[in-house]
């Protein structure tokens, strides 16, 4: 089997913020005069979108690329499609490459559907003769025969999508690179696209498929590469890679949140949150908690030097960012005389978690007595998933459409009974007596 794609120690660095060189000629010229180009790049001014990525793909393989947003997947595809160039490292791609990073590339509003088929086809690398040959098939696939001679500025977005994908589905490359183009479109269209992808795959072509639709990835790809933070985290058979990826995202470990590796935090680190556990009153660790349950939140921390009179607490938010509640040792007027160096934990015992089923985020903080010195502040580092429960003993499935909180409550109908008695009395008075 020959190698279709080779990636060796690929790295891509981007400059961000003010480190970018001037964007107007005027600035560049004045900068030149001030000799400001002699200024050094600072480390914070660049980010590594990809760092030392290496893998090789053989001819005929279908490989899925998965990862969080911002992990570097699209950058990798752009480099493989020669749209941008690596900062270091090498890539080798053999055979005719077609990159589908967007559906309908090259479309011009003023041109008709038919003209755009040629434009798009040519941009994607098809010869005019090839488009001529496949024109009928493309038109049929799109289902837009009636509208072919109208300028596409009159098309709906769905029609444009169908046209673009119809052309793309008839590409005949050796290597096909597809980037999340299936993310748009209705269910029927997505199904059509997946079928088309299947056909392409059947033709012993090499396919690189980036998507968040993990079911589609598992279905189409024998092999998966997980890109995380610009590096290859895992590379192997689809199922284990996808499971590992899902595991990292949702966190199926015993701890509700492992905060050791979280970099995105403020504070001088004198007290540092390490993890959060949700426990039942019996002390058993739980990943999910049901509405109305008693729960113990255990906050694990590590202290680097003895700290007197700290305040520890958190803010809880809905997934839309509404602040639900804030609580802390300060709110309770609790005085912690001293926290010794080393590891420890603090428990918050909640008798009844009056939150409706939804996902909530916790932002943990630890400060000194007056709240002036911040030891640690982790924004939305912990997810609390509240599951449904028979809250009002009614058997009804209630969720965030009913709000954020619920109270222990009971409806009392005693006041309504007199009205019932009254109306029954009235009804019997009005009804004709039958004998």
């Amino acid at each position: 089997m020959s190698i279709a794609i080779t990636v060796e120690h690929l790295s891509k660095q981007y400059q961000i913020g003010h480190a970018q060189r001037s964007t107007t000629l005027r600035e560049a010229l004045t900068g030149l005069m001030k000799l400001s180009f002699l200024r050094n790049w600072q480390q914070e001014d660049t980010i590594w979108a990809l760092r030392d990525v290496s893998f090789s793909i053989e001819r005929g393989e279908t490989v899925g690329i998965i990862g969080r947003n911002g992990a570097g997947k699209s950058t990798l595809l752009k480099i493989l499609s020669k749209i941008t160039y690596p900062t270091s490292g090498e890539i080798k791609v053999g055979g005719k490459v077609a990159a589908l990073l967007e559906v309908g590339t090259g479309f011009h509003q003023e041109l008709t559907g038919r003209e755009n088929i040629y434009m798009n086809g040519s941009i994607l690398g098809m010869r005019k003769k090839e488009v001529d040959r496949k024109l009928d098939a493309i038109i049929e696939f799109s289902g837009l025969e009636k509208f072919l001679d109208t300028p596409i500025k009159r098309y709906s977005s769905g029609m444009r999508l169908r046209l673009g994908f119809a052309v793309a589905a008839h590409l005949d490359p050796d290597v096909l690179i597809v980037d999340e183009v299936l993310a748009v479109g209705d269910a029927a269209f997505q199904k059509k696209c997946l079928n088309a992808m299947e056909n392409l795959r059947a033709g012993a072509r090499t396919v690189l498929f980036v998507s968040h639709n993990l079911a589609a990835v598992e279905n189409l790809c024998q092999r998966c590469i997980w890109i995380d933070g610009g590096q290859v985290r895992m590379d192997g058979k689809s199922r284990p890679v996808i499971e590992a990826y899902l595991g990292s995202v949702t966190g199926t470990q015993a701890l509700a949140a492992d905060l050791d590796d979280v970099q995105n935090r403020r504070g001088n680190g004198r007290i540092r949150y390490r993890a959060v556990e949700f426990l039942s009153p019996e002390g058993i660790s739980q990943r999910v908690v049901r509405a109305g349950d008693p729960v113990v939140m255990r906050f694990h921390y590590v202290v680097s030097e003895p700290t007197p009179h700290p305040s520890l607490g958190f803010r809880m938010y809905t997934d839309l960012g509404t602040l639900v509640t804030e609580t802390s040792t300060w709110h309770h007027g609790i005085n912690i005389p001293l926290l010794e160096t080393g590891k420890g934990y603090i428990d918050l015992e909640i008798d009844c978690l009056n939150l409706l089923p939804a996902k909530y985020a916790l932002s943990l903080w630890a400060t000194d007595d007056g709240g002036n010195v911040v030891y640690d502040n982790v924004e939305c580092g912990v997810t609390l998933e509240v599951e449904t429960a028979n809250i009002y003993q009614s058997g009804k499935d209630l969720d965030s459409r009913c709000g954020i909180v619920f109270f222990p409550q009971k409806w009392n109908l005693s006041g309504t009974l007199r009205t019932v008695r009254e109306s029954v009395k009235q009804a019997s008075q009005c009804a004709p007596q039958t004998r």
Partner: protein
Amino acid sequence: MTSDSITELWRYRELLYFFAWREIKVRYRQAALGVAWAVIQPLFAMIIFTLLFGKLARVPSEGIPYPIFCYTALLPWTYFSSVLALASNSLVSNDSLLTKVYFPRVLLPAGTALAGLVDLAIGSFLLVGLMLYYHVHTSWVLLLSPLVILITMLVTMGVSMVMAAANVRYRDVRYALPFLIQIWLFATPIIYPVSMIPERFRPILALNPCWGMVSAFRACVFPQLPFDFKLIGTSIGVAVLLFLGGAYYFYRAEKSFADVI
């Protein structure tokens, strides 16, 4: 580098045609005046220059009626200035293409240059009309005009490549451009004949790559005009250097287009 690039350009030749075709179709599809636009620009320039410079300022025109004297130079010049204006923005206005699909980026300004030939062809009909009207005696030299057109395209592409690539990084280039073109118009012997320039200044002005293309075109139509090989040769030499230099600059800048745009 070069042989790979050239084979690649040849492979993508159909795309060049499609870019030019797209531009022509779009330009003429919705414009009410359509094809007439191609003639209006040089025609009106000719009328205004004739009134101002020919009649009012009495600029000499080497024994040739001023309107046609002016127009023969305006034709390649209009090609140059209009293509340059469009081509220098061609990369930025197609930024979605640059970030989503690969093709040799030079095809975008090149497509504009190719599309401009249509306007040039239409404008030359008016030239033929003027030649008939003024009973101009042509000779075989007229057949050399395609060669001069080629030189015009060379000049245009050279400057366009530089401007297009520069505009991607420095967005104010396209605002400086109209100003530049205005000055360039007066630095080229379109409105006035070469004989008006004192001898000692001519070599300096010959460094203007547009000098050669305009003078050569005029000479094709009016072979009786003095043809200074040295000066015109210098100008064409500059044009070739500009083309090569522009191509090199474009090639170097191309790698970072998708990141900077």
